[in-house]
């Protein structure tokens, strides 16, 4: 999921509040001492390295950022348990998902000499607003969640992501819907429209409409869908709207297949739509289900919390930087080379970056709502 939308995306996490409150607690302040060894050139020795995280930790999108931070914390606590003498900390930069705040915070990130790499930015809008700054400073970054296609077309050689972009997902979604009379709706956001446009390219929709984020009444769209004779709807956007749309469609008696992308792939989709209306909906995501033991690790590093969307990607991204630190590649340029050439297998799947910084292989999975619940354990890969 990407985008700059100001909608909260809470996972059905227990204790979201406690999580947000504890955000400061897990932040490595690390202000003390060793200012001299700042420019992180000392290879081999312990340099008090920091990994920066930038994304929404508070505000409407805060819950999603907390998922990512939780993943990073999981990786760090594993690492620090093994390297008690040389701990790595995360330094958080809370952009609230807002590109304007992110562009100011980016200046702090690049001026912080202890930071060896950045996980984030969380959303595409803030990525666009800050990519140039990070690129100019030579700071390697790995986004766990920004999926807009042209982010990797900018020539920012420091920019990477461990999640498949919208183009891959949209193509898979179009394939999934082949043979149906599809009506495509999007929310005119960077993410939603981007994804929907890829789907539109992949098949011939019987109709199109565009709504707005924050819209709640979809009667005109429902009327159009019914009038078009469509037997499937693809929605590009977030669950706040997709949930309401499918609910209003079902209320109006429409019975076709409802499909949406990773912006809706969230248990909250079912909550918004109601279990009855959500039943049978298919939600795609460029993410494999997390292995069983990841949940346990996550819970022990983040007491009282459960892993959510993008937790696995963030965990993998943090591990790439930690491997770089272990390899002694702690200067920015060396770290960037390390990340660019990285090859390994994370909990979210195999990770290797192509020349633009996109992840090379990304499998898109179709999750469906069954028996009133989003079945997160048994998605079907779309081939």
């Amino acid at each position, binding site marked *: 999921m990407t985008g700059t939308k100001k909608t909260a995306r809470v996972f059905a996490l227990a204790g979201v509040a406690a999580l947000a409150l504890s955000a400061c607690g897990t932040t490595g302040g690390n202000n003390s001492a060793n200012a001299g060894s700042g420019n992180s050139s000392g290879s081999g020795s312990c340099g008090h390295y920091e990994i920066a995280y930038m994304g929404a930790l508070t505000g409407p999108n805060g819950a999603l950022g907390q998922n990512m931070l939780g993943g990073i914390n999981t990786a760090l606590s594993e690492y620090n348990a093994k390297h008690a003498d040389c701990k790595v900390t995360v330094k958080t930069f809370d952009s609230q998902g807002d590109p304007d705040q992110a*562009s100011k915070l980016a200046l702090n990130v690049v001026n912080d000499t202890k930071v060896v790499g950045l996980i984030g930015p969380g959303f595409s809008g803030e990525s*666009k607003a800050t990519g*140039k700054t990070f690129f*100019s400073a030579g700071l390697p970054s790995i986004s766990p969640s920004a999926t807009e296609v042209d982010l990797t077309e*900018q020539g920012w050689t420091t920019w990477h992501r461990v999640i498949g972009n919208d183009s891959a997902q949209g193509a898979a979604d179009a394939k999934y819907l082949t043979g149906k009379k599809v009506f495509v709706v999007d929310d*005119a956001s960077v993410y939603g429209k981007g994804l929907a446009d890829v789907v539109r390219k992949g098949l011939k929709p019987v109709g199109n409409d565009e709504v707005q984020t924050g819209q709640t009444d979809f009667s005109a769209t429902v009327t159009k869908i019914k009038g078009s004779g469509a037997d499937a709807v693809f929605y590009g956007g977030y669950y706040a709207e997709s949930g309401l749309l499918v609910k209003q469609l079902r209320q109006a008696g429409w019975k076709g297949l409802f499909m949406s992308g990773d912006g809706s792939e969230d248990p909250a989709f079912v909550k918004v739509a109601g279990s009855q209306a959500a039943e049978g909906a298919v939600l795609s995501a460029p993410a494999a289900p997390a292995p069983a033991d990841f949940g346990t690790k996550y819970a022990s590093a983040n007491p009282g919390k459960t892993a959510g969307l993008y937790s696995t990607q963030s965990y993998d991204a943090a591990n790439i930087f930690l491997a770089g630190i272990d390899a002694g590649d702690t200067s920015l340029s060396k770290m960037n080379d390390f990340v660019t050439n990285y090859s390994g297998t994370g909990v979210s799947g195999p990770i290797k970056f192509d020349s633009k910084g996109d992840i090379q292989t990304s499998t898109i999975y179709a999750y469906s709502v069954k028996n009133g619940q989003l079945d997160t354990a048994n998605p079907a890969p779309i081939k």
Partner: protein
Amino acid sequence: MNRYYDFAPSGLSRGWSAFRGWLGGLLDNKPTRVALIAVGIVFVYALPLLNLPVITTSGVDFGGVMFDAAAYALIAVGLNIVIGYAGLLDLGYVGFYAIGAYTTGILTTYHFHWPFLLALPVAIAVTMLSGLILGAPTLRVRGDYLAIVTLGFGEIIRLVIVNTHWLGAAQGIDNIPAPPNIGPNAPGQGGGLFQVPHLSWGTFPNIIDVGHKTPFLKFGPIDAIPFYWMIVTAFFIVIIADILVKNSRVGRAWEATREDEDAAELMGVPTFKFKLLAFALGAAVGGLSGAFYATRNGFISPATFLLLLSELFVAAVIVGGAGNRWGAAFGGVLVAYLPDRFRSFSDWRMLVFGLALMALAIWRPQGIFPPRRTRRALAAEAQIEELEGEAVDV
């Protein structure tokens, strides 16, 4: 008349009045006045380098915050022409900010490849023109109705951007170039005429932080301070223009229009023309600020230009003191600065900001720095209020 009195807030307390008298005395002395103003201006320019304790924001780059503060101050001065001088409540001012930014984006990168400095005057002209085009129908609408109509136009501008491919739609426009660097190595790496070190307050003897320098006149994505200097310069130029216009026939016509439109019309003031002029000039300043925002940020998208921003702009002008350019500018600084200063409140930031707005409104309904004429009227009213005790229930 000494216009610098405007700087001083109204003195309700005696101590404040004494201070004002003292300040006024100082300012009456011409060499002192020039010196003080010079010091003040130097201070404003040096502010982001000084890293002053307390006011410097922690956790977010102070240079970036200062740029935003200056951008908002500029906007507030522009909107003050519309609200404070002409008395028109414009709730869609963000539209002009957007038009300025988008004109810059389109001319410098999206459809053309003009240099920023060439695009800037065009952005101002386009925004001014759009002010005229939008103002012509809307300004015929009366009083408070104007508020909702302008609000509508602000939203229309944003939605048209979101839905128009030619304008970059929701994806926005990126790679907006910075102004040209001036200096030996421009425009490549390094550059700038010379390097300006920052102050550091951490360690006492080492007060100049030679490790942290800002190159003079090099506009890069990793240091906001040169952009700040640029926008502050523009701010001072706009202020001078504002003073000239306000003290001219035009300024008096605005005043007459604001106080009593019918009477002004009877006295031969073509009020509609003057309202339109205020709208267009205000728009132009908003467009200027938008253009600077675009070049500083390098990326613009409709998600920035929300209705909420219009409300904040209006809040800046009113809280600062509608009709007083310095008050409005201060309000702009406040509205941009406070949320970043409140960062430590984390999730409570906007709630605290809302409380601050309410408290300011109730504590100083006339604005923090009300214009002089209003100050006099208010002194009279305050007197009545004082005598009133239990207020009249009217």
